[in-house]
């Protein structure tokens, strides 16, 4: 049984990386102090503050954002029937970032900011979808249009920042490259409260995603209305991506690498692939974030740099390995 073994392995990996994330961070604290802080949460010592105010929230943020991005990758891939689709390659994250940039310039945060991020994401995916259905694009052309859209939106964002004052720009550019350090825009409890129901919603639609991934005609013949369901899935995934962007900026390729790595292990059936990808996405992003804090200590790398390198290498390897993409 590959199913239960995979999930057991992922769960143990999750526990190990979470521990790693708590014990390793931007500052080198002795392990004994960290254990002490974990056992006595109430205190106001340095270790207690670091562990309870910084590291644990950051670990949770990385897990949630990683799970969400990987889950969105699976959703976009199934709906577009495109193994290279994910929030970053489709330009969905960039759309969300434009929304966030506008929000920052307007001094908005919280729900209005998330709403702008969602609007940006949803408009981007709608644009890509409209282009692909209008001209009946192939797998790689859809991705190309997503990448082009991404460039376009990034230029608009740069334009906005270049006409804004420099102090705002510095913070925003860093955040745009992806950071799990947390923003004032959205608190961790608010993020969890918004994201968890959405993720469970996507999990509940896993079986329908199987039918959707066979194409509109087949889905229809097996008793489903593909149009409404695709809209629902894309809407939910846009909302999830929007929340991710609002809280952590653009973090690329998590939604691409993780589902691909999970398919051979958990299978293509979305009822197993979705939960496996969500678990693995959390693990992957948390590991990347811990690495980003540790490699050049005391300097912290944007986590997007780590996932970008991993994703770029993966993307290239994929393109070289399968000249006609994984479609018969």
């Amino acid at each position, binding site marked *: 049984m590959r199913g239960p073994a995979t999930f057991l392995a992922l769960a143990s990996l999750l526990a190990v990386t979470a521990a790693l994330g708590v014990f390793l961070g931007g500052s080198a604290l002795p392990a004994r102090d960290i254990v002490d802080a974990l056992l006595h949460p109430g205190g106001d010592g340095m270790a207690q503050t670091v562990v309870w105010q910084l590291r644990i929230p950051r670990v949770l943020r990385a897990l949630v954002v990683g799970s969400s991005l990987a889950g969105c990758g699976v959703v976009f*891939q199934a709906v577009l029937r495109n193994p290279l689709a994910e929030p970053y390659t489709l330009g969905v994250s960039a759309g969300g970032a434009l929304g966030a940039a506008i929000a920052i310039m307007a001094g908005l945060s919280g729900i209005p900011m998330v709403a702008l991020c969602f609007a940006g994401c949803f408009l981007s995916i709608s644009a890509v979808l409209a282009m692909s259905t209008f001209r009946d694009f192939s797998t790689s052309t859809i991705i190309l249009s997503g990448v082009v859209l991404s460039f376009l939106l990034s230029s608009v964002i740069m334009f906005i920042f270049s006409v804004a004052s420099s102090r705002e720009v510095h913070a925003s550019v860093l955040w745009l490259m992806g950071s799990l350090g947390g923003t004032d825009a959205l608190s961790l409890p608010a993020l969890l409260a918004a994201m968890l129901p959405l993720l469970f919603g996507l999990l509940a639609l896993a079986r329908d995603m199987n039918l959707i991934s066979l194409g509109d005609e087949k889905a229809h013949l097996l008793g489903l209305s593909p149009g409404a369901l695709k809209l629902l899935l894309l809407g939910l995934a846009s909302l999830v991506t929007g929340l991710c962007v609002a809280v952590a900026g653009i973090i690329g390729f998590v939604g691409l690498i993780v589902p691909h790595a999970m398919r051979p292990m958990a299978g*293509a059936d979305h009822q197993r692939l979705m939960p496996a990808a969500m678990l693995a996405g959390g693990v992957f992003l948390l590991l990347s974030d811990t690495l980003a804090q540790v490699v050049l200590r005391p300097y912290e790398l944007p986590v997007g740099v780590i996932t970008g390198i991993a994703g770029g290498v993966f993307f290239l390897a994929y393109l070289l390995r399968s000249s006609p993409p994984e479609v018969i």
Partner: protein
Amino acid sequence: MTGLTAERIRAGYQDRPVVDDVSFEVEPRSIFGLIGPNGSGKTTLFKCMCGLLRPFSGTIRLGGEDVSRIPRRRLARMAAFIPQVHAVTFPYTVEEYVLMGRYPHRGRLSAFTREDHAIVDETMEMLRIDHVRRQRIQRLSGGEMQRVFLACGLVQRPEILLMDEPTAHLDIGHQVRLLTMLRTLSAERGLTVLVTLHDLNLAGLYCTSLALLDRGRIHARGTPGEVITRDTIEHVYGLRSQVACDPYLNRPHVYFLGSCERENGES
């Protein structure tokens, strides 16, 4: 027992009708063959019959009910449509793919039952694909792939099975085995089968009745002997032929003699 009737169907895409004034009746438990040249409207008719395309006018009735009024999930339990072999994007295993045929019988959140798995197992055994059940669909040969698609349709437990050119891309051995299997299903399970075929001899051999489409209209319909004649073949396909009758099976057999010299050249 569910049969199917088409009454004066006019259908097509945008405003352009592809088929016009087409009526026929498919008897329960029969194997009904739709034949005709490329572009004569076979696939368009098929799409109407399984609810993918709404005719401009006319009705298709399944067991007396108007197909366009049957809710999708119920329709999926009554009729299974097997499209031509097509690409499957994701590496589903054979078993995962076939199991999807049970979705119309189960709610969104209810798990598959032992019965579902039993039906899937039995169907895969019958179609001799149980030895590849854990293989990815992409790794299969054309013949196996066609059987996997058929299995997915059969586990829907339909009363009527529609197959669009099931023998395309199959070698003659697989073609005959597939059609024999359809005949067995029809005889033993009371399944009504509707197929489109290009090979007139196979159509004559395996179908209980035929309808010959020509440029969107029915040119002839009836028993194979009535439909496959020298005249109809000359008129619809523009081919000279000799049609013999198999003395044992009492089925027509066509010997093609070449193209007719038509005044207008190719139509």
